């Protein structure tokens, strides 16, 4: 009787663990396959000419330079607005705010900002920046829209990095006569910097890959020149990939895979940089 019982539960354990392993296998193998497939298919399309030339023949030939430059501008624009604001907000939450209802409200607002669908950000950007403030469909409007979307990621990451700095560092600085702001600027911020940079890059990575928020705020279907002011619309890599894979008939498949690969390199390059900074800072940290 006892023997039978124990046999059963070891049998169940075997089956259960095999099943879980199988499930994990079925999750991870497609992920590897997806990356390998895009790299394999996209690599032959990438050449200096593909990266540095304007699109020709209704985007069916030539390069994707305006889309690359556009995504670079949008990411930069997003950083200009969201990084100072996000870090300041994180400093407030970590160094100044007391635990009261207002602070709780700020935290709820941050969680909700993080959860709002990206296309709703697009609507908001259209309503506020494009129409109400009359920026038009422009790099400015798109960058501002992406900034607000990126803000919760930056605030959360920066706050976590600031809170990780030991309390003793602050106490010592204050006891030596430093003011609150001197303590933050000279002691806490430098210590938290690697963590903050990592969070900033991860936030901007998301902004760089997004399409829905820029659909009606700044993305141009086809613009065979580089944008020359903040009020110009621009091509962008994710939107360009969407356009050439759904809107343009007879699009050479190679250009599509090439564009997808360039986008992935752009985005995952940022991701790997962030991971690198984080692991290096962890290795060097002395507290």
């Amino acid at each position: 009787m006892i023997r039978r019982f124990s046999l059963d539960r070891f049998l169940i354990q075997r089956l259960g663990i095999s099943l879980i392993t199988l499930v994990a296998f079925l999750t991870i193998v497609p992920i590897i396959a997806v990356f390998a497939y895009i790299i394999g298919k996209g690599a032959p399309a990438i050449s200096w000419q593909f990266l540095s030339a304007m699109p020709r023949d209704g985007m069916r030939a030539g390069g994707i330079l305006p889309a690359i430059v556009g995504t670079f501008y949008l990411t930069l624009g997003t950083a200009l607005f969201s990084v100072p604001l996000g870090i300041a907000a994180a400093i407030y939450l970590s160094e100044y705010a007391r635990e009261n209802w207002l602070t709780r409200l700020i935290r709820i607002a941050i969680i909700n900002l993080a959860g709002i669908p990206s296309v709703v950000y697009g609507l908001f950007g259209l309503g506020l920046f494009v129409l109400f403030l009359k920026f038009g469909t422009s790099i400015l409007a798109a960058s501002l829209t992406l900034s607000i979307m990126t803000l919760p990621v930056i605030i959360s990451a920066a706050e976590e990095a600031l809170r990780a700095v030991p309390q003793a560092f602050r106490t010592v600085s204050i006891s030596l006569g430093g003011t609150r702001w001197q303590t933050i600027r000279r002691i806490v911020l430098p210590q938290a910097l690697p963590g903050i940079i990592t969070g900033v890059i991860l936030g901007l990575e998301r902004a760089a890959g997004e399409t829905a928020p820029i659909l009606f705020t700044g993305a141009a279907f086809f613009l065979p020149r580089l944008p020359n002011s903040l009020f110009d619309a621009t091509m962008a890599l994710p939107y360009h990939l969407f356009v050439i894979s759904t809107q343009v008939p007879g699009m050479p498949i190679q250009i599509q895979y090439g564009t997808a690969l360039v986008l992935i390199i752009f985005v995952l390059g940022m991701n790997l940089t962030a991971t690198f900074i984080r692991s290096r800072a962890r290795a060097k940290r002395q507290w």
Partner: protein
Amino acid sequence: MNRSLSWGETLITAVVKTCGYSAIVFVLLIFFFLLREGLPTLAEVKFGELFSTRWYPIEDHFGILPLVTGSIIVTVGAMLVAIPFGIGTAVFLSEIAPRWMREILKPLVELLGGLPSVVLGFLGILLLAPFLRNFLNLPTGLTALAGALLLGGIAVPTTVSIAEDALDSVPQGYREGALALGATKWQTIWRVTLPAARSGVLTALMLGIGRTIGETMAVMMVTGNAPVMAVKFSSIFSPVRTMTATIAAEMGEVANGSTYYHVLFFIGLVLFLISLVVNIIASSVVFKSKSRAERVLS
């Protein structure tokens, strides 16, 4: 103390404080603009008409129910994929895989989370849809099923990452205690570790759902975009259209200030309120054990 120093200090404090409140201001601004552009819908379209089953804006039929059911069927389908695969993978990484394997595989899964959804949509069109069409012998592969599978793939990294953290933070003593009492490894996982990590795992699922409902590009590219009521089981094998895809696909073509324009903002308002509810549930008392930073960063 030096007077100019204290002036600077006051100024900085004021600036930092203002920035601190910015998140509240932005949520309110978003809500305000959605209301401003979306609410006129209720004056322009009859209530019964708005919640009817026909979405055909060219002839002024603005029934949003097909879009709502489209979103629901795709989201439910995605969760059926994401729950077993997401939690299964999290359990594997945290409880079964050796440490070196976890150190490689977890970042890999998170890398998928960083992939722009438009890239997944692109692969969906080129690989997944033709495969489904041939495999299931359908007239088109661009169906709710394709959307659900793809969205499941998008929700999996979020779910794995947070659920694995939750499992990992269960004290080692719990497992050792169970094993010492003669439980098998499987019984330990199933009856001790998973229940102990329950709130984190539920948070992971809620946030997975949140990402799924709001996902736009991948869904727009692979679901075929037909605004039909998706209420039968077989609807999963036919094209549908979600709320997000409708906004993204049609906003570019409408005249500012028209009824059509207001209805699209109204759909955005509905999405905003759904995400508000999902996030407030996810952050409520039941799920409190997880820090906000982990949730936002996932």
